[in-house]
């Protein structure tokens, strides 16, 4: 292999910067939206995505985004988010244990956020038993699918099905209410 290094100078800052800007522009918003779904707070999500981009620059990692930039970014954001919620989850655990002691009781009146309007509360209350329990655990207790599955002794697949079912029912039930928004 010919030694071509002698003709090569280290990356010219402008080109790197331009490229970085391009990558940033095309992915920032979507990465934040994705991060939000995991951490459920847009300030947090933006912080995560920004610090990922900064870290990348510091470590000169922008260069390594040669092959599949998009996949790389999404993976990085996912990792950051998971670290974040792992921390939150530990903090939450205690609180959940307490709620789950009553897991067999059908009513969870205290789990609804106070802001919820009666109509929406009613729609959620109307969900079929297990579906309702699982939805509440996911939405209001912010448990991961795997956590819910473990607690209820069900498969993750069942949890997925139930959440998707709940969402479809709510879409239908709430369609009148939502129009007023």
């Amino acid at each position, binding site marked *: 292999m010919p030694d071509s*290094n002698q003709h090569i100078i280290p990356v010219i800052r402008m080109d790197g910067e331009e490229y970085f800007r391009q990558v*940033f522009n095309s992915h920032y918003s979507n990465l934040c939206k994705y991060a939000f779904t995991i951490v459920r707070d847009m300030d947090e999500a933006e912080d995560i*995505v920004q610090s990922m*981009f900064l870290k990348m620059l510091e470590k000169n990692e922008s260069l390594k985004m*040669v092959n599949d930039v998009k996949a790389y970014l*999404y993976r990085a954001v996912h990792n950051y988010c998971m670290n974040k919620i792992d921390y939150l989850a530990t903090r939450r655990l205690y609180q959940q244990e307490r709620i789950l002691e009553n897991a067999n009781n059908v009513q969870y009146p205290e789990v609804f956020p106070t802001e919820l309007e009666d109509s929406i509360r009613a729609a959620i209350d109307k969900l079929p038993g297990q579906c309702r329990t699982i939805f509440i655990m996911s939405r209001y207790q912010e448990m991961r699918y795997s956590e819910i599955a473990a607690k209820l002794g069900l498969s993750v697949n069942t949890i997925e099905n139930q959440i998707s079912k709940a969402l479809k029912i709510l*879409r239908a039930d709430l369609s009148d209410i939502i129009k007023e928004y």
Partner: protein
Amino acid sequence: MENKGEPILVDDQLIARYLSGEANPDEAIAIHLWLETSENRLYFEKLEIAWNASFPSRTPRDPNIDEAWSSIQGKLKSDKQIQIEKSSDFFKSGWAWKIAASVLIASFISSMVFIKTNTSSPLRHLAIANKGQVEEVKFSDSSIVILNKGASISYPDIFDETFRIIEMNQGEGFFKIAANKDRPFIIHTPIADIKVVGTEFNVALSQDELTVSVVQGRVIVLTPKDSSQLDVGHSAKVRSNLQGIEVAEFEEANNWGYATHSFVFKDVPLKEVFKDIEKSYSFFVDVRNRDIENCKLTATFVDVTADKIISLIAETLNLRVTKNDNHFTIEGKGCP
């Protein structure tokens, strides 16, 4: 290529998983790609609205990209010194991901960035045709690709013994592949692979669609689920969400005028003619009199320069041309 297993199907279950923060990175990418279609977006929004209504205070605001950019840019400036120091010992560092970006000094490729990567295979280059300029890249087997503005590919310094493999990441390129039956030439794209032995063809790659059009010879297009052999005059379209390949005869050979500098017009209004020409060269055409755009042209141009093609058109239709930088101004009587 990594990450090229089964395509991810976006269904209600995946949407629910995404909304509840359970989607893995690949699934999130699939969702965002899927959302680029307005029909899908409408469908998604209905579910999202129901999801948000069940916890209104957790409805996300929009990310603020401008603010984010200024905050990052501030950091960028203050880190500049460190950045340059670090990159200078980059070649010596022993990461698995040992990649060094570099710019060759030679002036004829001044608008291209080459990135060398030391993976298991020999040296790899990344070629990006910067905005506003078409770039030609010659491979070690003397095959050529002409990259349209904004396109990027990565390719090895020297091809492997058995296959000639490159990767196309984005944009459009016109390939002229040197014939070699024993060493197929393969182009990996995120959507499908293209395999040839020696041909001329155009590849247009967008985020969710790949179009391959054969000008000479024969081309094979492969996806994980389908494959298709294309003959001269045909193009194949592959969308990233559907794995099928649609084959059709193409009509618009002027689309790759950026590479061939050749055009065929049959009774085409000048308005369209100028559009095709502007797309292929880096200049603009202004007409003094809108009626000029109505004039129809029937002509074939083979490998012509911008100046030549404009002056030939003007001569044919009895028009006057003045040139100013990258602007041509055309005056004359025009057609009703």
